[in-house]
C-alpha cells in the first residue's frame, strides 16, 4: 500500500529545493491530518463516546454472543451465496461461450439484465413477490438468492473473460490432437482461466461478503442488525458509535484477510508463469486492476 515508489511519470527525483519544499508540505499536511483526527476525537470526547459505560458492555458474554450470532448469520449468507453464485457463474459463462445461438443469447440476456438491476431491487423481488402469493421466503433466502443472481452474473463475465484470455494456440493445439469442444473447455481452457482469474474471483467474493449487509434492510438478523440492537440500548447510553466501530473492524479485518490471500495467490501465479507466456488480462478487466466496482 505505502511501499510503492513515487510516481516517476509525474515527479522527477527531487533536487535540494524540491526536497525543502516537500518537507514543508509534509509538515503542513501532517499538521492538517492530525488536526482533523484531533477534531474527531474531541467531538467523540465532548459527546461522551469514550465513556466506560458505552464500551464496557463488549466484555459481557451476552453482548459477545449477540455479535457472534450476527457474524455467523453474515458468514452463513455469504457462504451460501458464494457457492450458488460460483455455480450460476460457471453455467452462464458456459452458455455465453456456447456455439449454439439458442444458448448464447438467453445467457447473455440474463447476465446483462441482472448486472443492470440494483442488487437491493433483486433482493426485493425475492422478498416481496413470494409474499404477494402468500408463500413468504425467509429473509435469509431472499438475501442469498438476490446475491446469487447479481454476483453470479458478474462472475459469469469474469469466467468468460478468463477463458477468452487463454492464448489461442492452447485451444488450437488441443483441437489438433483431436479433443472435442467439451474436453478443450474443461481440460485445457478452464484450469488456465481459473488460475489467472483467481484474484479477481476472490475480490468479487469480498464484494459479495460486504453486500450481505444489505440484509439489514430486509431485517435479516446479520451483523449490522445485531449492531442496531446493541446500539439502541438506553442502559448503555445508546452506544451506536462504539458498536459500529467494532463492526467495521470485523468487516475490515475479514475483507483484508481475503484480499491478502488473493494478493498472495496473484504473486504465486505470476512467479510460476514466468517460463510460459504470461496470461494477458482480458480487455474489460485490464483497465481496472484491484478495483472491482461495488
Amino acid at each position, binding site marked *: 500500500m505505502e511501499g510503492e515508489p513515487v510516481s516517476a511519470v509525474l515527479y522527477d527525483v527531487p533536487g535540494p529545493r524540491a526536497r525543502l519544499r516537500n518537507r514543508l508540505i509534509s509538515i503542513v499536511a501532517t499538521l492538517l491530518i492530525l488536526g482533523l483526527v484531533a477534531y474527531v476525537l474531541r467531538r467523540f470526547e465532548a459527546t461522551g463516546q469514550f465513556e466506560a459505560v458505552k464500551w464496557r458492555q463488549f466484555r459481557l458474554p451476552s453482548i459477545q454472543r449477540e455479535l457472534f450470532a450476527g457474524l455467523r448469520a453474515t458468514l452463513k449468507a455469504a457462504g451460501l451465496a458464494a457457492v450458488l453464485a460460483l455455480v450460476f457463474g460457471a453455467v452462464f459463462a458456459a452458455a455465453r461461450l456456447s456455439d449454439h445461438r439458442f444458448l448464447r443469447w438467453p445467457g447473455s440476456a440474463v447476465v446483462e439484465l441482472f448486472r443492470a438491476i440494483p442488487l437491493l*431491487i433483486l433482493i426485493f423481488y425475492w422478498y*416481496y413477490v413470494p409474499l404477494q402469493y402468500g408463500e413468504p421466503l425467509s429473509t435469509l433466502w431472499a438475501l442469498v438468492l438476490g446475491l446469487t443472481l447479481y454476483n453470479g452474473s458478474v462472475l459469469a463475465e469474469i469466467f468468460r473473460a478468463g477463458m477468452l484470455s487463454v492464448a489461442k494456440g492452447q485451444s488450437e493445439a488441443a483441437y489438433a490432437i483431436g479433443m472435442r469442444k467439451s474436453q478443450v473447455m474443461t481440460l485445457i481452457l478452464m484450469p488456465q482461466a481459473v488460475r489467472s482469474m483467481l484474484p479477481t474471483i476472490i475480490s468479487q467474493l469480498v464484494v459479495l461478503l460486504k453486500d450481505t449487509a444489505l440484509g439489514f434492510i430486509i431485517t435479516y438478523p446479520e451483523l449490522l442488525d445485531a449492531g442496531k440492537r446493541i446500539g439502541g440500548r438506553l442502559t448503555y447510553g445508546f452506544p451506536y458509535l462504539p458498536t459500529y466501530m467494532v463492526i467495521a473492524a470485523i468487516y475490515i479485518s475479514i475483507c483484508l484477510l481475503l484480499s491478502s490471500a488473493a494478493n498472495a495467490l496473484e504473486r504465486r501465479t505470476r512467479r510460476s508463469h514466468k517460463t510460459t507466456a504470461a496470461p494477458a488480462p482480458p480487455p474489460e478487466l485490464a483497465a481496472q486492476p484491484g478495483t472491482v466496482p461495488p
Partner: protein
Amino acid sequence: MGDFLRVLTDNRSLFVDGFLTTVKLFAIASASCLLWGTLLAAMRVSPIPALRVFGGVYVQLVRNTPLTLLFAFMVFGVPKLEINISFFRSACIALLVYTSAFVCEVVRSGINTVDQGQGEAARAIGMTFIQVLALIVLPQAFRAIVPPLVSVLNALLKNTTVAAGFSVLEAGAIPAYLSERGEKQTPTLIWITIGFLVLVFPLVSTQRVLERRWRGSR
C-alpha cells in the same frame, strides 16, 4: 396487464418523486466523489509521505467496509455526536465517502499506465510540472481511466437504492411504500427495474462505445 399499468398511473407522483430523488442523489454524489476521489488519487501518487499514507489508509478502510454500514454510521451514529444532518444529506455523504475510494483507485491506476519515459522525455525538453500533467500524462491516462470510471458511476447509481433503508424516499423505497398501500409488488418491482434500465442504459452504452474506440490505440 391493466393491473400492471394501473400500479404506475395510480401512484404516479410516488414513482416520479422517487426517481427524481434517485437522480438527484446520483448527481450530487457523483460530482462530489469525482472531485474527492481525484484529490485522493493525487495524494496517493504525491511525493509527500503523510498524504500517501492518508490516501492509502482511507482507501483500504473504506473499500473494505460495507456501504450499508457507512449509511448506518451516518444515520444512527453521527447524530450521537450532536451533529444533525438531514437524511438526504447523510445519504449523499455516505455515497460520497464510499465511491470516492473506488474513483481514487481508478484514477491512480490510470496514471500508472502511462509509461515513465513519457514524463522523463517531457521534462527533458523543459516542460513544467503543470505542462507534463496537462499535456502529456492526463491525455494518455484519460483513456485508461474513463471506461472503468463509468462502471464505478454505474455502481454508484445502483447503490443509491441503499438509501431506501435509511429514510430517503428514492426509487428503492417505493416497494415499501406501495406495500403499505396494499399494492401488488410484482408490477411495482418491474416498473422500478424498467426505470433503472432506462437510467443505466446511457452509462453502459457510453462505456461500450469508448472501449471499442480506444481498444488497441493504447
